[in-house]
């Protein structure tokens, strides 16, 4: 535990940083403090847990490779200069940036720490009871509530002195429905860098819809298999932007010679109506921050414009090697996890079609509307993403509700086949993203409705 005030931490970090002259080698040090409250409730369990301000520090330097040491005991702070190797005249191993300063705390409308714990538990129980009593076919309402307060302090030997305090809140509702031997569900998830107001905004009308969605899944049909015209809802277009496309743009994959997009910078990768972005600087979103875990200021990165690949996604080192500008995508799960190139808020920008128009132009197709999960194929450019539900489109109309649908095939083919993007307001959904199978960071993904002429689907 690092039991110091934030000002003291900055001062100690400055002192440690002074051991490493920038002209000799790059050095940075990050403080991470995380407090979390989790409440989960299901038919058989209610759990409340607090992570009481877990703190730690990670320091690193770049020689031929990164050398990094992470500690949680204050006593070990003084050993950091001894733990990291020193070298002379190695400062140009990475691009030098001007140091900068920031001290930002997101102020919430309703501060979760001011709401008594019993009020939060009461709220979760009310949600649970409301859902349980709505219909006897709801056999298990699963509710998950989480709030976190993350403090990160960053100092480096370029003069950066940065501090940010980010509140994150998330609510997940999954009413499990059963009739006969059939069990199914739909789910609802919201999350943002906001306060408790996010939870207060969930109305009974919202809940009615969430429950009805789960009940409807009991009578959903199996989806067809094969290549069909499809419409992707905002959840699903976000999954394409993030999972199938965005991971290939992470520039560490480019340096590894692993990305199918490596040779496509400046080339056409999608239809002309596509604009895809990653932006950690959108206010209040679950994947946002003021600076990343390498001290880079958050910006907006236009990845694809008019179908042309404009930029990769960078951390400090990939930007240095590939001569580009980082926008705040070097992220760690915690001090104990490595820093990698990571996405933040990744989305398709809205277009100018009406969704009704997009549906009416399809004779036989499928609409995929509930983003469920996906997996990247960075080298091959393949995709697998699943939608928890969808609709059959017949003769220009949405007809039968469909069970889980898996979408696969070539990402670039899908992007180049996009012939309509709706004018609906940008919708971003929260989630967590892993690098491989670990190192989870908060993100959002989204967009509006996107139509593609042909894509391979199958039951999921």
């Amino acid at each position, binding site marked *: 535990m690092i039991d110091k005030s934030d000002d003291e931490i900055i001062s100690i970090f400055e002192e440690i940083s002074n051991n490493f002259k920038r002209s000799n080698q790059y050095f940075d040090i990050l403080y991470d403090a995380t407090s979390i409250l989790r409440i989960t409730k299901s038919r058989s369990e209610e*759990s*409340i*847990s607090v992570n009481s301000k877990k703190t730690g520090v990670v320091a690193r330097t770049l020689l031929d490779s990164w050398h990094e040491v992470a500690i949680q005991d204050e006593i070990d702070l003084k050993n950091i200069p001894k733990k990291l190797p020193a070298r002379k005249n190695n400062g140009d191993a990475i691009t030098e940036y001007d140091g900068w300063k920031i001290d930002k705390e997101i102020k919430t409308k309703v501060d979760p720490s001011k709401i008594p714990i019993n009020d939060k538990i009461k709220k979760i129980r009310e949600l649970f009871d409301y859902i349980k009593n709505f219909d006897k076919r709801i056999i298990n309402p699963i509710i998950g509530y989480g709030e976190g307060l993350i403090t990160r302090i960053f100092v480096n030997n370029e003069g950066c002195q940065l501090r940010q305090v980010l509140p994150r809140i998330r609510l997940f509702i999954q009413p499990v429905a059963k009739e006969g031997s059939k069990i199914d569900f739909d789910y609802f998830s919201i999350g943002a860098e906001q306060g408790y107001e996010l939870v207060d905004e969930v109305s009974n009308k919202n809940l009615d819809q969430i429950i009805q969605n789960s009940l409807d899944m009991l009578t959903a049909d199996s989806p067809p298999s094969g290549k069909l015209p499809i419409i992707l809802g905002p959840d699903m277009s976000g999954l394409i932007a993030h999972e199938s496309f965005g991971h290939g743009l992470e520039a560490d994959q480019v340096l590894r010679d692993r990305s199918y997009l490596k040779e496509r910078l400046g080339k056409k990768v999608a239809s002309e109506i596509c604009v895809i972005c990653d932006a950690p600087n959108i206010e209040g979103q679950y994947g946002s921050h003021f600076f990343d875990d390498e001290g880079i200021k958050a910006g907006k990165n236009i990845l694809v414009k008019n179908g042309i690949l404009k930029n990769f996604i960078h951390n400090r080192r990939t930007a240095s090697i590939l001569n580009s500008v980082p926008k705040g995508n070097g992220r760690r799960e915690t001090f*104990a996890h490595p820093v990698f190139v990571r996405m933040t808020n990744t989305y398709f920008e809205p277009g100018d079609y009406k969704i009704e128009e997009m549906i009416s132009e399809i004779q036989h197709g499928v609409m995929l509307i509930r983003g469920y999960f996906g997996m990247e194929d960075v080298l091959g450019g393949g995709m697998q993403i699943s939608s928890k539900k969808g609709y059959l489109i017949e003769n220009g109309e949405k007809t039968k509700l469909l069970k889980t649908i*898996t979408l696969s095939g070539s990402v670039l083919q899908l992007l180049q086949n996009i012939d309509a993007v709706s004018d609906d307001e940008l919708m971003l959904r929260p989630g967590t993203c892993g690098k491989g199978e670990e190192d989870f960071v908060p993100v959002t993904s989204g967009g509006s409705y996107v139509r593609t002429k042909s894509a391979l689907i199958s039951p999921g």
Partner: protein
Amino acid sequence: MKKVSVEAIEVIEKSLKSKKIREYEIFFVEQDIYETEFLKYKIDTVREVKDIEYVVRILTQKGDETGIGIVKGNSLSLPQIEKNIEICQLLSKENSGSKYNFPEQKPQKPIKTADQSIVKDPIGFKSDMSEKILEEISEHKEITPTFSRFRIHIQNKTLKNSTGLNLEASKTFFYIEMALKAQSNGKLSEAWEIEYIKEKEELNIERRVNKWARIAVDTLKAKIPKPNRQAIVIFPPNVLKNAINPVIGFHALGKAYHEKISALNVDAKVASDTFSLRDDGLLEGGLRCNSWDGEGNPHKLIEVIKNGIFKNRLYDQKFAIMGNTESTGNGIRIDDGSVINSISNLEILPGDIAKEEIITSIKDGYLIEKCSWLNPDRFSGSFGTEIRNGYFIKNGQIEYPIKGGNISGNVLEMIKNSQFISKEREFSLNSLFPYIAFKNLSISS
């Protein structure tokens, strides 16, 4: 590894007692991590992590119900420990659930879960393994590595509660991730593999690199599989784990039974006659191998499915009390410090046919080496996933590699349709599984 737990636990326990808290539990974990990440053939990042954390759980009994407070922290300063205990006490008063009490100490089978040679010299071992990884990769001129990671975890865990239970365990395990790329005539393919490995002997870098390099090279020639709505498909252990664990491992739980969502009824036929599944927290080589589970109950071997018949559910302390039975050692400690009812290590008993014989017995089928992400729906068992690496089998022989297209099915149905089970078994994470050929899966492309 510097061991701070003894003194820290004493301080926490003293503080709990001074507040006259009668039912408490302290779980203390010290962890050292040593990692090397490679960019192609070069070391890119070297990391060392020293971490500790503790979890305090406090119970408040309320007649037929129990409130459980859970607080996780890493501060060893007395004021912060006291604050954490106060929060924990408050949570236990506000929380309400079914009856629960902490287990008492019971006889446990001692097992070795830490390799002392790793504990003594983790950096030396990591360095040897790093060299070995580069050496093995360099042997294969037909592939190039894009990146790799090798990591050692050393953990010391202590669990103490107010019934007098006092347990300690040390554990070592490894993480390996590797992406090997093959290319020819403008075509690219890769084998990207991730494994958590419990034992040093199971690391077997040479075997792994050989296999992954072969998959990468073969995938260069891969074709999209032909659609087949009633396909015979062989799943290797690492793919099978992703199907069986989340579905059968879920429906077998006391929790699933009490939530009325288990599709498995005791003594009912749920799988093919040759299919037998055990949960074994004592299984040496399984990632969750330990003498005791997350709340201190002894791990044991439980027959879940025997010759196709569902025999036993898996209980943690909470659901055991609810079901008026005994814990089977299936309380797993998760990240937020709470204990959930879950599988420990799953083991499918071997069959009597060699893996190669399974292939020769199949007239028209598929061997799936890797899926994109199988991720079945744990309630229904349904899944649909993209094929990343695999082979088409024709007249008992591997005909050609396949990639792309989807495989879909239902895990609860699949185990009723296992046609061949191999003699050979392999560890993958917390599973020891054979190769199994299943009938009636659907391939679409």
